[in-house]
């Protein structure tokens, strides 16, 4: 019987398997950042161990670095300690680090692909749940805990039970103005936040094939928000074109050998998945969240739902709690919801294509009075490229704040936070209570919705700008 894409990549990485034990899986690339790695390095030190493969390890600073004044010492002592510790550990154990101020610094999930380190058929891990982003290249990529970070550092392997597989087939084409973000938000509302639990998901179908690599990364990024272990998309010409010429991409004969192998990384026609979901892209519309988890979403054209309309009691209670936290009335048209801050950035939507799209919509407009727009590139490279294309000027002319690279308001570990009850439209991935700052209220949105919302001051789509 044939194999799924996930099974092919998994089987290629099994170092050892034994009855009654998890597989020992080889890890091709281990990405590291300042927050979840300190104890792992400390564990190595206590046990007198080394990093087995520093040459398959890459560190960057992203989670709590400031996006202004990044050339000055970090003001917050806790953040500074974590960043200093990463620098010390990287030096001691010989790990390549892209620190604040370095041209390759940025969000770990933006840096890997842009360096060309993220390639089809790899296993990639990081002490961060959104590692699933890298699955867009046909890699198995997932987040791990601190003990596992230590395990990978010491052994370049992980003990892992083989997950089940699921196919999400998205037929048809996305209508104009509807993006990968709307697609994945629609999917999560459809499945619920636990729908993917225990599965490696393969996204497939016409709408997925038509996505750019940036769009595919947005979809895979949010796999974790519906509980999936990992998300992946079979590599194709779009993938190869994106990788070719990147700094760490294979060259010459290696390139040919790599592509030949990558072309085998597709689900065989006679392979079976443990579970399958089918969606139709052509009916999708701009989609936003109204609640406090990514599965509480609705079409932008709709209204804030009425909790009593939910069939399940648990959904009703969750919706009531969410509306109270979010300060929303049932039945309010989502387009009437006034927004204080628009955040464009994160590993979900902080790549160059995202900034281009945002700039295209904002161009010639002004950010609405009483609204602030924060644009945070996912990496220094993205920032530089955007500036070369003059995007920064479009943003600042409109009245936006143009910032340095990092996670920023996605999780508010640095000073970029919402005030209590401040409302955001955010292109990031989590709308949990307090995620962007204590008491802050987050609506997850796509890039076009974020840009149009900044201009109108209420949740909007670009179509609203034309009237």
């Amino acid at each position: 019987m044939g194999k799924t894409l996930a099974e092919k990549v998994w089987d290629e990485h099994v170092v050892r398997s034994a009855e009654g034990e998890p597989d020992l899986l080889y890890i091709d690339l281990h990405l590291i950042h300042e927050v979840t790695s300190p104890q792992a390095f400390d564990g190595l030190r206590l046990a007198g161990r080394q990093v087995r493969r520093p040459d398959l390890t890459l560190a960057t600073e992203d989670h709590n670095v400031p996006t202004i004044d990044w050339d000055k010492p970090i003001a917050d002592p806790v953040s500074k300690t974590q960043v200093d510790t990463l620098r010390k550990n990287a030096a001691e154990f010989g790990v390549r680090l892209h620190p604040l101020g370095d041209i390759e610094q940025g969000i770990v999930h933006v840096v890997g692909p842009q360096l060309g380190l993220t390639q089809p058929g790899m296993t990639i891990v990081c002490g961060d749940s959104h590692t699933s982003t890298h699955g867009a290249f046909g890699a198995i990529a997932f987040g791990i805990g601190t003990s596992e970070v230590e395990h990978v550092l010491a052994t370049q392997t992980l003990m892992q039970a083989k997950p089940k597989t699921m196919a999400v087939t998205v037929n048809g084409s996305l209508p104009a103005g509807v993006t990968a973000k709307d697609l994945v938000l629609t999917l999560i509302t459809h499945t619920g936040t636990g729908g993917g639990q225990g599965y490696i998901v393969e996204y497939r179908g016409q709408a997925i094939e038509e996505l750019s690599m940036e769009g595919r990364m947005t979809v895979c990024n949010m796999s974790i928000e519906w509980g999936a272990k990992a998300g992946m998309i079979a590599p194709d010409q779009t993938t190869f074109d994106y990788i070719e010429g990147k700094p760490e991409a294979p060259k010459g004969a290696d390139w040919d050998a790599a592509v030949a192998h990558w072309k085998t990384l597709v689900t065989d026609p006679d392979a079976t998945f443990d579970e399958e979901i089918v969606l139709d892209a052509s009916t999708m519309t701009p989609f936003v969240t109204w609640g406090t988890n990514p599965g509480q979403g609705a079409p932008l054209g709709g209204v804030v739902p009425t909790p009593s309309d939910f069939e399940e009691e648990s959904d009703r209670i969750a919706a009531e709690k969410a509306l109270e936290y979010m300060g929303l009335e049932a039945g309010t048209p989502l387009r009437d919801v006034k927004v204080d801050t628009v955040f464009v950035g994160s590993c979900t939507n902080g790549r160059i294509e995202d900034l281009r799209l945002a700039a295209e919509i904002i161009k010639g407009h002004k950010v609405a009075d009483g609204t602030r727009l924060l644009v945070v590139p996912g990496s220094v490279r993205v920032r530089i490229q955007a500036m070369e294309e003059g995007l920064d000027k479009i943003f600042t002319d409109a009245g936006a704040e143009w910032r340095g690279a990092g996670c920023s308001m996605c999780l508010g570990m640095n000073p970029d936070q919402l005030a209590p009850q401040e409302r955001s439209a955010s292109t990031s991935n989590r709308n949990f209570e307090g995620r962007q700052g204590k008491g802050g209220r987050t609506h997850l949105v796509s890039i076009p919705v974020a840009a149009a919302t900044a201009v109108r001051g209420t949740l909007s789509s670009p179509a609203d700008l034309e009237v």
Partner: protein
Amino acid sequence: MEKFSSHTGVAVPLKRSNVDTDQIIPAVYLKRVTRSGFEDGLFSAWRSDPEFVLNQPQYEGASVLVAGPDFGTGSSREHAVWALQNYGFKAVISARFADIFRGNSGKAGLVAAQVDEKVVQRIWDYLDEHPGATVTVDLESRTVSAGEGPDAIVDSFDIDDYTRWRLLEGLDDVGITLGHADVISSFESTRPSWKPVTQH
């Protein structure tokens, strides 16, 4: 990880049930960047009370904790186990442990010995009569014991075979995997040349 076969040490009665990970170590202590030094956060809310059992001089240097049921519930933070170990505990005896806490203990080398609730009570009574006395946790024979003579307490405890084996051998997960280093090396030797590296 150090091998653990048997340990005898001063035992502390912690007469509370449902000691959750926030009580073992509050979140404010999680910002540290090491795996050591968490002892100052251990039971920090309770330790500010001079009457708290750990503040009593007879329990100085204690290394066995005898706690009420449902020990270690709550978050998955590994810091809870580290805090107990950093303080000097080698074993915790309880009638029930939270799953994640028990798993983390096994990973880190802290023995979580699950006994019958009556056994906890008997040890508590014994410690009340003999404050500062020692209790033995023997992993070979899977027994806890205290006292001497006709009133001595000896009873068995539960721990899963795989964890027991790893603790007896002193193997953490990393240690076990490094035992397969030759298999890993031979796997690495077949890695295609076009796969990327971060250092050249």
